[in-house]
């Protein structure tokens, strides 16, 4: 009777997708929460687009795409933080400029790499990932790198939290601002790179912020926030896999659409911070004070 529930998970490629998404969901909680708390969605978005030239170069010279993406992320982050120190250039503009510039370079290089027969994959695969094409190697990568990032973020949880909520207090207590920033961006860059084969570099932003933004509408406690984000990310992943399996829709896009719907639901109906409950509280005189 419940065959339709288990049927999608009988093949190796859907099982691989599920394993990969489970690990990315954990990262979505551990790393994504800080992205939302600090409101750095644009920089993260820029970072995830800007790794395209790194992947393209790796495909062209036959190097490791993982290393290529990571180097590109470092270079673009350095360019943004360096140029935005100029008083005529805002961080907002610098992010917009270098993310599109790097992306354009990536598009041109990918076209070269794809027309060059020696390479595998196309630019569309890089942009949207191939959820059902996740390999054992990808899973091992995610397990190792994701485990490392999780360990790092759990060890530094107090410092990261303090610097997100109260940067000046954090500095006064002797935690240097820039190396905590560096740790956070490193975590973000590594998450983006490991999530890439499954969800692609355009929609990876949704994995990093949407579940955390959804959870933030429901709880104030940091540990619950992290756990809830991971749960929401995984829930959206499972529903997305069903949608894409039964209706033949693009995998990553289905997951992100479901994830956004969960966000809108929580925005409307969250008991404490939802639109509806605030509206009702305003209306009912019993709740005044």
């Amino acid at each position, binding site marked *: 009777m419940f065959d339709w529930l288990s049927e999608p998970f009988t093949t190796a490629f859907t099982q691989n997708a599920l394993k990969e998404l489970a690990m990315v969901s954990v990262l979505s909680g551990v790393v994504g929460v800080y992205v939302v708390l600090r409101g750095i969605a*644009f920089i993260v978005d820029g970072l995830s687009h800007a790794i395209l030239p790194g992947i393209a170069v790796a495909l062209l010279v036959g190097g490791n795409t993982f290393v290529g993406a990571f180097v590109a992320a470092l270079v673009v982050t350095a360019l943004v933080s360096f140029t935005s120190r100029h008083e005529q250039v805002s961080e907002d503009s*610098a992010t917009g400029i270098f993310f599109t*510039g790097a992306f354009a370079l990536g598009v041109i290089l990918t076209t070269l790499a794809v027309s060059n027969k020696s390479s595998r994959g196309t630019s569309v695969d890089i942009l949207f990932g191939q959820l059902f094409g996740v390999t054992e190697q990808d899973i091992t990568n995610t397990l190792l790198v994701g485990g490392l990032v999780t360990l790092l973020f759990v060890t530094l949880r107090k410092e990261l939290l303090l610097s997100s909520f109260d940067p000046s207090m954090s500095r006064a207590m002797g935690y240097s601002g820039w190396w905590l920033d560096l740790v956070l961006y490193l975590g973000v860059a590594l998450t983006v790179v490991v999530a890439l084969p499954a969800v692609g570099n355009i929609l990876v932003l949704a994995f990093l912020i949407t579940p955390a933004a959804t959870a933030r509408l429901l709880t104030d406690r940091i540990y619950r926030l992290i756990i809830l984000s991971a749960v929401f990310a995984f829930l959206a992943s499972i529903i997305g896999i069903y949608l894409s399996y039964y209706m033949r829709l693009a995998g990553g896009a289905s997951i992100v659409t479901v994830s956004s719907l969960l966000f809108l639901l929580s925005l409307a109906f969250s008991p404490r*911070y939802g639109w509806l409950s605030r509206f009702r509280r305003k209306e009912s005189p019993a709740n005044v004070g």
Partner: protein
Amino acid sequence: MWDDVTRFLLEPLSAPYVQRALLEIAILSVSVAIVGTYVVLRSLSFLTLALSHAIFPGVVLAALLGWNMLLTSMVVAVGISLLIGLSSRNSRVGHASAIGTIYTGAFAAGIMLISSAGLFRRLSEFLFGRLFAVGDDDIVIAAVVTLLALLAYGLARKEILLVSFDRAMAQAQGLPVAFLELGFLALLSLVVVAALPAVGNIQTVALLVTPPATARLLTDRLRVVMLLSGLISLLGGVMGVYLAWHLNLVSGAMVVLTLTIFFLLAYFFSPRYGLLTRRLRPARA
């Protein structure tokens, strides 16, 4: 040698599609300069990026059902702006996360739609633009939007500026602040939609942000920034088209890359604000 130069310059021009691409770029440089200058001054890059991605389902719907692309995208853009506004007013979400969450969701919905309709082969055209295949209707849309932008600038230049920089002051002067904000947002969406065929929806933000940001490194005066950014996007557009044609590369990406290089040149060598020019200039006593 001169023969080579003239051939380099004239050969592409004989192709009608190159002429159309150049015309499209020339028309767009006017509207992106006007709107882009405000985008840079108000730090609205992320919102611009979000709008250009979020109208994607509108573009797909229009292509699927044969609706008017401009109108459908505008309706989607208005819906998306409302959703972003609504969710960023909830202090738990915050501005940046609201923009990011809503736009990735809309974009993903567009991809889902495209995958269900078997339009996947046209995906790269939506994403990266088709500068060498712009049609007459694209050029007409760009021209109409540019006229609207010029009209809005002529009528409400001072008002938009005041609302952008000093909301309280604008309110005190009795300006219709909400109307002006919405009007600016509508104009921004129109320009984003008009620029889509040229550079595609991932890179539209470059056309709006990179030229004014480059101009700001060269001058402080608002009107000169606007004028210069128009010239910069025109020059970058023409150079990008020529490079793409001669090297046989993706045209929209080539334009964006040229503009990025202009920015870097201005960043290092601008007479007044350049990094290197400042270093080389002897310190004044």
